[in-house]
Every structure is written in structure tokens, then in C-alpha cells.
């Protein structure tokens, strides 16, 4: 897949069974980020509005709940890896709101 190759070219390690909040991210930056945290990566389908599809957002919610304050999770559009959205712990409420608005 093109998006994973792009991540690998950026030095991201593609992982199979590393757990984060009971979920399994697609990639990890091998070195700590500028704040000393870990950067995780997910590859999937991004909607035209720039949000990951709903099922991916549910997965991201579980992952954000397990993040440390300096960690990030970046969602990368599988068909256009330039399109990305990075989440931190403090984005949890915002992400949850996108899943509740139809209730």
C-alpha cells in the first residue's frame, strides 16, 4: 500500500501487534518526538470532510484514551498520504463529539 510505503520512507516503523488501548496501530516513530512522547500512526479511509471514517474514529478514541500527554496519533489517508490529522490526549472530547452528533 502506497501510504505505508510513504510512512516507511519517513522512517516510521510499520508494526503488526503493538497494543495501544487494546487496539493495534499501524506504525510507530522509532525515536521519541520533540516532547519526549511516542508518535503512533494509523492508515485508513479519510472522508471528504477531513475526518477518518466513523469506524476508524471509534478505534482512535480507544487509542487516545491510552495515550500519555506527550504522545500523538496521526491518522493518514490511505489514498492520499499527504492528508493527515494528528490527535493528542486533549482531542478526545472533540473526537467523541463527532460520533455522538447523530444521537
Amino acid at each position, binding site marked *: *500500500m502506497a501510504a505505508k510505503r510513504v510512512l516507511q520512507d519517513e522512517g516510521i516503523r510499520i508494526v503488526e*501487534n503493538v497494543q495501544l488501548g487494546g487496539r493495534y496501530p499501524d506504525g510507530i516513530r522509532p525515536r521519541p518526538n520533540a516532547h519526549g512522547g511516542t508518535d503512533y500512526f494509523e*492508515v485508513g479511509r479519510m472522508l471528504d470532510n477531513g475526518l477518518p471514517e*466513523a*469506524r*476508524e474514529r*471509534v478505534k482512535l478514541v480507544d487509542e487516545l484514551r491510552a495515550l500519555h500527554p506527550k504522545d500523538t496519533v496521526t491518522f493518514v489517508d490511505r489514498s492520499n498520504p499527504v492528508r493527515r490529522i494528528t490527535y493528542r490526549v486533549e482531542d478526545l472530547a472533540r473526537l467523541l463529539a463527532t*460520533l455522538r452528533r447523530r*444521537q
Partner: protein
Amino acid sequence: MSYFLRVFCRSAQPVTRREIAEFITAGSFFGCEPRFDPPPDSAEAADENWAALAVHYDSQKRPVRIERNLNNALLQEEVQEILFVLAKSKETQARQDVERVIRTAAQVFSLEVNRETASEDCWEMLDSVQSFLAEKCDGIVYAPDDGFFDRKLRPLYKL
């Protein structure tokens, strides 16, 4: 990358995690018996209200995750997303039939798998579980990027 197969069901009839685990075990899809979370003999596996079941079929690979959503916000959100995808494709009677089922779905099962690393055995198991769930709950199968299939996995509408 996660690939989410879905079974959209007209019936809200509950299927417990124990039933699904027992179906997978009986199918002998893998060389070694898979491990389930929760275990099929646990009380929670028999609960009719549940959210997720993990199928650990290979210690080197991420598990398959089966989720169930019953008439909730996520189901409604997914319905809208899939109707949007369908609206971009050729309008036929088959598409209208599929749309009708999607719009009126009472529950959805999602089967999450790593598309690039899942084994042949795993895909065989997924096909059987989809068929099992679609049969039990009057559903159709949605394979993103591919199309919609009936309970016997015969094509209904190709994307």
C-alpha cells in the same frame, strides 16, 4: 491497515460472543485453536449486549476484532458514509435494493482485520463468520472497495 468488513442486518436478534466463538472453533479454520477475548466459557461471552470480541488466531499477528452495534450513533454514521459511497456509483435496481437494506439496518457487525497480513486461514474464517451472521440476522455483507454480498457471499452489487 485495518479493513472493516460489515454485516448489515435487518434483524436485531442478538448473537452472543459465545455463539460466534463456538462457530469459529467448530470450523477448525486454524492449525491451533484460536484464543478468544472474552473466553467462550465466561459469563460475559453469553451476554446478549456486547461490543467487541477479539479472535487471536496467530500470536505473531494482530487479532481479528468483531464488533456489534445495535441502532446507535455509529451505525447511523456508517449508514450515511456508505450511502455516500453508493451515491457515486452506477444507479441500478441492485443498488437501490442494497440501499434499502442499509437504510433499515437494525444492527451491524464489523469484522476488523489487517488486510495485508491476515493469513489465508483467517480470510476463510472471516468469510464463514460473515455468512453465519448474515444468515442468522437477515443481513448483507459489505466489503469496502469491493461490493455487497448476500448471506451465501454471492455478489449483490459491485462497487
